[in-house]
């Protein structure tokens, strides 16, 4: 079935699954999981190098010609820190795309939407392709779009919680409110969660822990790929309406008569 691409910052992506690079049991398992996920974009954090410089780097396990690196601003609690981190990532050669996080609270890791909006404005003005991790709040989503965000990435549930899409109705409203792509970021626990996001009409799903923390990350990566594809296909196919009572699938006419 024909499908359009996911377009971010003028770049076309056929995969609608974005995966992380953190918390895998080993770099080799990460590489295999990336392969099975079919993802074209992988997120990375930007952190101090260990000194003196050691040989093993995560980038030895990511083919940077094939995967687009998406640096995040995880761990930033102010717009200023997030903006500086984005600049560092760009200077490091990680490109213009940034998964913008401005965290409001360490326990929930919910976004500080005020700081997020401020950082989005600054970075969009400076030519970044801003992908903000935000709340499932349609009003903020609209403001982020107006501020120049390339997409909006509402959380399904808290980061790493695996609770799934806690408020599908808000995600639906966000989809009706903005015209930029909507990518569910955070909260996915298993394949059905990713499928639900796509069935709602989301343009993509971003996840890390659901794959990296699974007992078999490589198998889960494949499950997520299939779920995102299945959910997308089901959305495009147009599901049937929900009804309270049965509607027979077999004809009522033409039944043999057993009464006499």
């Amino acid at each position, binding site marked *: 079935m024909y499908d359009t691409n996911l377009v971010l910052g003028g770049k076309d992506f056929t995969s609608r699954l974005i995966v992380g690079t953190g918390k895998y049991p080993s770099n080799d398992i*990460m590489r295999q999981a990336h392969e099975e996920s079919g993802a074209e974009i992988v997120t*990375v954090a930007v952190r101090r*190098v260990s000194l003196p410089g050691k040989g093993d*780097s995560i*980038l030895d396990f990511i083919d940077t010609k094939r995967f687009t690196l998406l640096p995040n601003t995880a761990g930033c609690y102010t717009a200023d820190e997030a903006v*500086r981190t984005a600049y*560092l990532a760009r*200077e490091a*050669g990680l490109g213009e795309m940034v998964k913008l996080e401005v965290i409001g609270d360490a326990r929930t890791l919910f976004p500080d939407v005020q700081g997020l909006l401020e950082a989005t404005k600054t970075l969009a003005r400076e030519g970044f392709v801003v992908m903000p991790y935000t709340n499932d709040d349609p009003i903020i989503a609209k403001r982020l779009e107006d501020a120049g965000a390339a997409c909006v990435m509402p959380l399904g549930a808290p980061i*790493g919680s695996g609770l799934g899409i806690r408020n599908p109705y808000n995600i639906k409203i966000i989809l009706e409110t903005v015209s930029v792509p909507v990518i569910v970021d955070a909260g996915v626990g298993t394949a059905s969660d990713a499928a639900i996001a796509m069935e709602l009409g989301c343009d993509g799903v971003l996840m890390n822990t659901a794959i990296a923390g699974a007992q078999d990350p490589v198998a889960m990566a494949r499950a997520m790929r299939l779920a995102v594809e299945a959910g997308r296909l089901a959305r495009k196919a147009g599901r049937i309406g929900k009804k309270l009572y049965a509607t027979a699938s077999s004809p009522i006419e033409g039944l043999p008569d057993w009464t006499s």
Partner: protein
Amino acid sequence: MKITVNGREMEVADGLSVDALLAHLAVKREFTAVAVNREITPKASYASVALREGDRVEIVRPMGGG
């Protein structure tokens, strides 16, 4: 002179360039970024920027994350 690199104080030669510091610490250049006293140092000026006593240097690169 004393400088602080990634939170660690160290003694280096006076007037050391960013370029020489990276070589001294055996840090890979690819996908690496440097900031001195909160200001990003463009790659093109690594050789020309001389560090000064008390400078705070941050050297970062991509790590695993979500």
